[in-house]
């Protein structure tokens, strides 16, 4: 018997005594037991799939933590120094040379911290499938996080594209030709961040599916 979902239908006589009453008394008993079972079934089925969605939400959140944390650490620990130098050119590259990458690290750090803090709310919606408040709160913040991670990932992607290809019109040279390891790391971090973005979008959609009442 699921807690809090079954109505208390008073069946005034036990099954052994009902045989002794007349047919007229038995019919309303049958009617109330029909509504009782229908009410219990209505209460049970939506709780079932809502709980499944909440469990899926929790698991996907764990993957999201992995993705966002990977993006943050891989970008945050890039540092490459080439073993030669001239008087005009700096041959050291790290992530805070480019403000877009700093923003990327900050955005992904915020996203992973948010995901860790949202795990209790996710557990609450597993335990209580009909709690609307927790799901709505998570949906609101997940939407904002979609925007934040997409912003960080695509700003960094623009710079990574420029680093790989350069731009002849603006006379910007492709720095990846010299800094190979740096370029590979930042490209990998951008990919991880886009995966985190897709995860956030998925979380928003399944939360909106689970918010439906019946």
């Amino acid at each position, binding site marked *: 018997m699921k807690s809090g*979902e079954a*109505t*208390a*239908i*008073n069946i005034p006589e036990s099954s052994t005594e009902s045989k002794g009453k007349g047919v007229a008394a038995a019919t*309303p008993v049958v*009617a*109330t037991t029909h*509504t*009782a079972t229908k*009410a219990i079934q*209505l*209460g049970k089925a939506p709780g079932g799939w809502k709980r499944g969605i909440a469990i899926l939400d929790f698991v996907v959140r764990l993957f999201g933590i992995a993705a966002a944390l990977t993006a943050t650490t891989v970008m945050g620990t890039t540092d490459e120094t080439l073993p030669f130098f001239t008087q005009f*050119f*700096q041959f*050291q*590259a790290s992530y805070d*040379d*480019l403000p*877009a990458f700093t923003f990327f690290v900050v955005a992904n750090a915020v996203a992973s911290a948010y995901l860790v803090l949202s795990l209790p709310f996710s557990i609450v919606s597993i335990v209580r499938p009909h709690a*609307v408040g927790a*799901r*709505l709160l998570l*949906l*609101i913040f997940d*939407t*904002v996080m*979609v*925007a934040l991670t*997409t*912003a*960080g*990932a*695509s*700003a*960094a*992607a*623009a*710079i990574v*594209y*420029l680093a790989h290809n350069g*731009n*002849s*019109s*603006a*006379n*910007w*040279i492709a*720095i990846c030709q010299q800094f190979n390891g740096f370029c590979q790391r930042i490209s990998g971090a951008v990919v991880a961040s886009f995966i985190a*973005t897709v995860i956030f*979008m998925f979380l*928003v*959609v399944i*939360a*909106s*599916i689970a*918010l*439906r*009442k*019946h």
Partner: protein
Amino acid sequence: MKAGAVELGEVSSKVVAQRRGMNRGASIVDFILRLVAFAGTLGSAIAMGTTDETLPFFTQFIRFKAEYNDLPTFTFFVVANSVVSVYLILSLLLSIYHIVRTGSRSSRVVLIFFDTAMLALVTAGASAASAIVYLAHKGNVRANWFAICQQFNSFCERISGSLIGSFIAMVVIILLILLSAVSISRR
């Protein structure tokens, strides 16, 4: 048998009517916000797409003509904003349907799904373009990238201003998603 009359989840009809009224109000606000977002993205796409500046002198090393498709990121920005504005026009139909028939829930979930995808697209376009605009304004000493804004003044102003509409549209789309979610949960 009074207990059998009240079924699970049933509230009084007055509250239901009140909720429907609020949902209808939310649908109307949704429609208006969609128009605002459409104006924002269309304005941004046009402002970025019509950039073209030629400086009256040249040397053999540097080009002195700047337009938006010199930088692939700006091309992506124009394309993304155009796609989102077309989507917003098409979703106005669904929004009108929600004003008329406030109770439908599955179509609202579909709307949330597409709104989320479009949010990601417009944010991607806007932030990639802002990264390049920042670089155009400031340059980068470490990568030896020169700040092109020092020569191309009106080009720079144009591309910076076109970002505003796109960011406004991003905020509006976030509000649209939240509005749809609240409408779903209240019904």
